């Protein structure tokens, strides 16, 4: 059936839409295949990692982190207040002055290599905890998050003693203490994206993980402790927004790196006005995923699914606006619906799970609110026929058709498994619509024609363009946004500039 819907020679597209052929009912049900988690040790209570030691918070407060798939409490985690943050920054400053800036670059490299190796050694444990604490499917944490985190440390470790080659003819020196604030969608991977370049470039760090997903960052702190890094080179302070604000606004922080929402990013940028702090921001997105009629449609469908339902759509660069050339709209939507019959939603620790739990109740409510607005504004909703577990936070993979560009679901970042499908007739219209957003993090283009792809790649105002693929990441490949998706790059040679003063 699939072949009859794609090209029938030349550029003619079979427009006729066949009736449903993939309603397999119970035939898709698999026996549970849970990843064993009995070997994983989560402490009942975690302190703050400051100056190489685990300390109780001066605030005296702890908060609970739960599994979004079961709502069970996993651990209690310290809530750092401004005093705790001050301790952490002081420790980072001392470590910078006494150890890290005095160390030979080649030795600095070896410490960062050690972290990478230990992540590989503890990979399965990290993947399991990541899935428990964040709700993402184990196949993603195991095959994407953790290996990429290890790769990021490995890649950047090698730069430590080669910075003179990175900016030839110019002098580069570290900035000092970096304050880093990371989100809950890729907790360990974002910690790696932040820590690896900062450390390799010779800075010391105070890192604040997201309050709903602190566990893997704390396991990473253990790895750093076991790797015997000089005390205070990496400090990890857990907490919510206030803790983050204390990190960003601390007067002895030389550099602030933030990944998160555009709203908070703007607030940080404003708060830093009048200081000499360096800032990089990796913010929201509303990426266009553009499918031309000449594209390999079956591959495009895989790319669309991966683009929006990967990590429950909790991805800043998610392909959340699907722009389809009008002539293949019906065919593509049909294929998309069929493919969505096969998505398995459920236990994140099950190795067959495609779509896990929504990260938090608050996020689930935001998704529901935006989806409701889409229905109110007259867009047509389709949700995959999945059975949602009773406990935990869940949302079925969903897409909207008949949505206009002015709909909230077409403009605002949903950060959930919700796709908005729109059409275009000419390449110019596709470019116009794709660029018609305040964001500019990523974009996808699906076409069989190389020249068309590169023309679009040039004209799309986005930091990452995926041609006939989507959601690919690599430490050697710079990632970051245009416009209100932020500034600065992470990864690659270009990413080093975020942690260096280059003359």
């Amino acid at each position: 059936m699939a072949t009859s819907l794609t090209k029938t020679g030349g550029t003619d597209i079979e427009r006729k839409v066949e009736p449903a052929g993939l309603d397999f009912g119970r035939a898709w049900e698999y026996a549970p295949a849970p990843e064993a988690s009995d070997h994983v040790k989560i402490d009942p209570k975690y302190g703050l990692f400051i100056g190489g030691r685990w300390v109780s918070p001066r605030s005296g407060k702890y908060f609970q982190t739960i599994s979004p798939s079961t709502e069970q409490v996993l651990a209690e985690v310290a809530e750092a207040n401004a005093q705790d943050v001050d301790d952490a920054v002081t420790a980072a400053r001392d470590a910078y002055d006494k150890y890290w800036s005095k160390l030979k670059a080649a030795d600095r490299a070896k410490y960062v290599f050690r972290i990478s190796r230990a992540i590989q050694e503890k990979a399965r444990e990290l993947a399991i905890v990541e899935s428990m604490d964040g709700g993402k499917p184990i196949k993603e944490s195991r095959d994407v998050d953790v290996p990429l985190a290890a790769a990021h440390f490995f890649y950047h470790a090698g730069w430590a003693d080669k910075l003179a080659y990175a900016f030839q003819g110019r002098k580069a020196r570290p900035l000092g203490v970096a304050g880093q604030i990371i989100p809950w969608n890729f907790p360990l991977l974002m910690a790696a994206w932040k820590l690896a370049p900062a450390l390799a470039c010779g800075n010391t760090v105070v890192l604040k993980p997201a309050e709903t997903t602190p566990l893997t960052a704390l396991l990473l702190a253990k790895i750093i402790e076991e790797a015997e890094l000089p005390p205070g080179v990496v400090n990890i302070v857990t907490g919510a927004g206030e803790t983050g604000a204390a990190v960003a606004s601390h007067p002895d922080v030389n550099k602030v790196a933030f990944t998160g929402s555009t709203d908070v990013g703007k607030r940080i940028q404003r708060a830093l006005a009048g200081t000499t702090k360096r800032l990089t921001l990796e913010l929201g997105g509303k990426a266009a995923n553009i499918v031309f009629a000449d594209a390999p449609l079956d591959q495009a469908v895989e790319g669309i699914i991966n683009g929006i339902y990967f990590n429950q759509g909790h991805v800043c660069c998610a392909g959340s606006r699907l722009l389809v050339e009008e002539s293949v709209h019906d065919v593509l939507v049909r294929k998309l619906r069929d493919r969505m019959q096969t998505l398995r939603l459920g236990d994140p620790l099950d190795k067959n799970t495609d779509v896990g739990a929504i990260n938090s109740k608050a996020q689930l409510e935001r998704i529901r609110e935006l989806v409701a607005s889409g229905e109110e504004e007259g867009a047509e909703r389709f949700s995959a026929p999945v059975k949602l577990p009773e406990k935990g936070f869940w949302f079925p993979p969903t897409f909207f058709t008949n949505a206009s560009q002015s709909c909230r679901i077409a403009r605002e970042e949903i950060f959930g498994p919700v796709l908005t499908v729109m059409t275009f007739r000419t390449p110019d219209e596709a470019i116009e619509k794709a660029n018609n957003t305040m964001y500019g993090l990523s974009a996808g283009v699906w076409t069989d024609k190389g020249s068309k792809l590169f023309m679009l790649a040039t004209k799309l105002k986005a930091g990452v363009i995926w041609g006939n693929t989507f959601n690919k990441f690599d430490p050697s490949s710079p990632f970051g946004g245009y416009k209100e998706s932020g500034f600065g790059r992470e990864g690659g040679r270009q990413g080093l500039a975020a942690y260096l003063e280059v003359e």
Partner: protein
Amino acid sequence: MVEKKRTETATANAEAPARSSGDAPLAKTWTTQKARVSVAKAYKMFVGGAFVRSESGRYFQVQGARGSDADPDPETVNVPRGSRKDVRDAVLVAKNALGGWEKRTAFNRGQILYRLAEVMESRRPELVQSLVRSGLAEVAAAAEVDASIDRAVFYAGFSDKYFSLLASSNPVAGPHFNFSVPESMGVIGVVAPERPSLLGLVSTVLPVVTGGNTCVAIASAADPRTAIVWSECVATSDMPGGVINVITGHAKELSPHLAKHREVIGIDAWIVDADLRRTVESEGADNVKRVKTHVPMDAEGWLDERTGQGLGWIERFLETKTVWHPVGV
């Protein structure tokens, strides 16, 4: 020259005593020694390739000594005092000029910048004269103009080089072809330093446009005339209209508007006043603007090739775009 003028004035006043002790003395010397009555220039802002007055109708006055006896300018000159709307109009013009400018080949942009250097060289005496009018000694004025022309040549030659210095092919761990290229950001706002009025403007504007951006610059209020004379060089080079726009007025009034404007994606502001720098940084956050503020350098800093120019000047208003494509049959 200033000395001489003062003497003349004193003599003139002595010859024409005030009618009564309460009257103001004659403000100007009036002589009939000149061979002809000169034609003074009305100074106008440079927007979209045209010379325009402020839509507000406002002006401010610049005092200055004559550059030479042949200088047609009077000692007091009216200059348009740009408004918020002038800034907004200029941003629109710059936005519209963007597509054409970034589409040009790097080679072509280099040729145009070199042409600008040629025109500046041929108008060297006029630029020097304008700086002298603003109070610079002849030697200092000449040095500033020379450095400004050389800076234009520097960036002319850089336009087709920075790309290969900043781009990369990235060895990702998978069957993908992956590369990163620098790309222009869009409309950049420049708040030029008060001094050096010419070299400061040239050093800030040229790297921005070399990178394929268009710009709206707020010229030095201490010496707006030289910025306008330089704009005449831009107008007679092959620079497309709207790529470089120069607004005259008060930075304190105009730079917050530039910082607030959502079509402006970056700002390079050289401002002495710390409060104003903070305002620009804070307003810029509204659209996550790439705000670069600086405490202005001294003249030596601008003249020095190591501190006054370089790849970093172009790089700070460039984005990095990364493109992925699968490799396979």
